[in-house]
């Protein structure tokens, strides 16, 4: 039951208030002066204080100030009770933080009504404060989870440029706040062949990160890998074709499994001959900038992974010659929308890549990011990961 502290130097007034309030089931404490009131308020769990103003030694205003200055008692609602009745006195009391003001001689019904109202308001504001704290706590935990998911995702991305014969690599990866599910990687499969892939998992946060991890696991080159099929005779393995890699992933990740889909390009590069076999599951087309400066798109396509192979993946082929550059990226770049509601788009990207032909591979990636930043104003609140991965064939 709610607890009320009655502070008045007049015993008659305290008795009167006690009789009135006891009837309504409140637990009551009384104090004859400001000092006693402070002591009780600090020791007991007081829900409301009825506070006289004209008291010797420490008057009601001073007592109110003292109560408001201490954390423990600052939130307790105070109703001033006083024979002083000018507007100025009332305003002074309210300015000091009192919740209400009742003039004496008071009306019994009025006292009860105001006490009930302020106890209710106080109860509601305490519930609100509690709910807010719980919400903040939950929010903090969600943010921790998102951060952890992002960390897991980033751990799947190569820290340094891989060392593959005949190839130089460069990359730019700018993750969004919400962990966007982009990954890319390069794996040596044998002496001649290198697997390269880029993936964009739908959605954000923990679910996307979990699928990203699972897919990356499927694509690692050792042990139980989908990138090589074991054979009974030498050389005891066969490299899985890009189309077959996508088909396998499509079977392993139907939409019903995780309610997620992903886009992906998988390329198999024979780094001795420069021949590339590839397949594309609805991902932005990789582009080649030839040493001549010409742009060529890898156009073989297919549906997103998760659709159960309703539409087949097209097998793609091309050859890289020394000086050619291959760029892979995710839609976080081309679908970047600026404040004028314009999209960055493929044209800006392609033009920048062509323009940067004479810069180093790494500088060309930097040039794209700079161009994106200029277009966007700021990429701090990017909605999606920004991923660009480049290879130059030597």
């Amino acid at each position, binding site marked *: 039951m709610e607890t009320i502290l009655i502070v008045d130097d*007049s*015993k*008659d*007034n305290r*008795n*009167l208030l006690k*009789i*009135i309030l006891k*009837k309504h089931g409140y637990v009551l404490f009384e104090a004859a002066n400001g000092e006693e009131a402070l002591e009780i308020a600090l020791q007991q769990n007081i829900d409301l204080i009825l506070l006289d103003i*004209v008291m010797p030694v420490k008057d009601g205003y001073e007592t109110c100030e003292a109560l408001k200055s201490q954390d423990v008692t600052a939130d307790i609602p105070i109703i001033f009770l*006083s*024979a002083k009745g000018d507007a100025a006195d009332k305003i002074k009391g309210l300015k000091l933080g009192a919740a209400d003001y009742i003039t*004496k*001689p*008071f009306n*019994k019904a009025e006292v009860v009504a105001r006490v009930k109202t302020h106890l209710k308001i106080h109860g509601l504001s305490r519930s609100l404060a509690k709910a807010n704290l719980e919400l903040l706590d939950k929010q903090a935990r969600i943010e921790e989870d998102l951060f952890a998911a992002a960390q897991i995702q980033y751990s799947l991305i190569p820290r340094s440029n891989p060392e593959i014969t005949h190839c130089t690599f460069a990359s730019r990866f700018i993750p969004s706040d919400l962990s966007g599910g982009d990954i890319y990687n390069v794996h040596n499969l044998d002496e001649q062949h290198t697997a390269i892939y880029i993936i964009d998992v739908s959605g954000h946060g923990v679910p996307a990160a979990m699928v990203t991890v699972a897919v990356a696991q499927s694509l690692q080159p050792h042990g139980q890998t989908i990138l090589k099929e074991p054979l009974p005779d030498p050389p005891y393995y066969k490299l899985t074709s890009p189309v077959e890699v996508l088909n396998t992933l499509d079977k392993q990740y139907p939409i019903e499994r995780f309610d997620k889909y992903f886009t992906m390009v998988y390329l198999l590069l024979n780094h001795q001959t420069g021949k590339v076999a590839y397949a594309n599951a609805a991902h932005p087309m990789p582009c080649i900038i030839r040493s001549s400066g010409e742009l060529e798109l890898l156009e073989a396509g297919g549906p997103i992974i998760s659709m159960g192979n309703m539409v087949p993946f097209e097998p793609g082929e091309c050859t890289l010659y020394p000086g050619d550059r291959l760029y892979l990226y995710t839609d976080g770049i081309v679908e970047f929308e600026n404040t004028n509601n314009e999209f960055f788009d493929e044209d800006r990207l392609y033009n920048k890549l062509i323009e940067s032909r004479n810069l180093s591979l790494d500088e060309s990636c930097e040039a794209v990011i700079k161009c994106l930043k200029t277009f966007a104003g700021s990429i701090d609140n990017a909605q999606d990961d920004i991923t660009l991965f480049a290879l130059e064939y030597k």
Partner: protein
Amino acid sequence: MPKVTVYVDIDLEELIPIFLNGRQEDIVALKNALAAKDFKELERLGHSLKGVGGGYGFDFITEIGDKIEKSALISDGSHIQSLIDIMETSLDNLEIIYED
């Protein structure tokens, strides 16, 4: 002196003896303060009476208290004297009716 009738909430019945006792003490205090010409004290006593009377149903005490307070502010000792007399007489001729 005709009876002075006050209507008091039945819930307060048990407090009335303490209340009336307190008012007798106030009368003594008022007389002492007046004799000493302590108008500050008279103002305080008047203010206190103003605050306590009506809550118990004793509206006349609130009125007297208010007048004593105002008279004390202008140091009107003779008016205060007559107010004390009225209060004393009224309390001597009290009729309390308890109501719900």
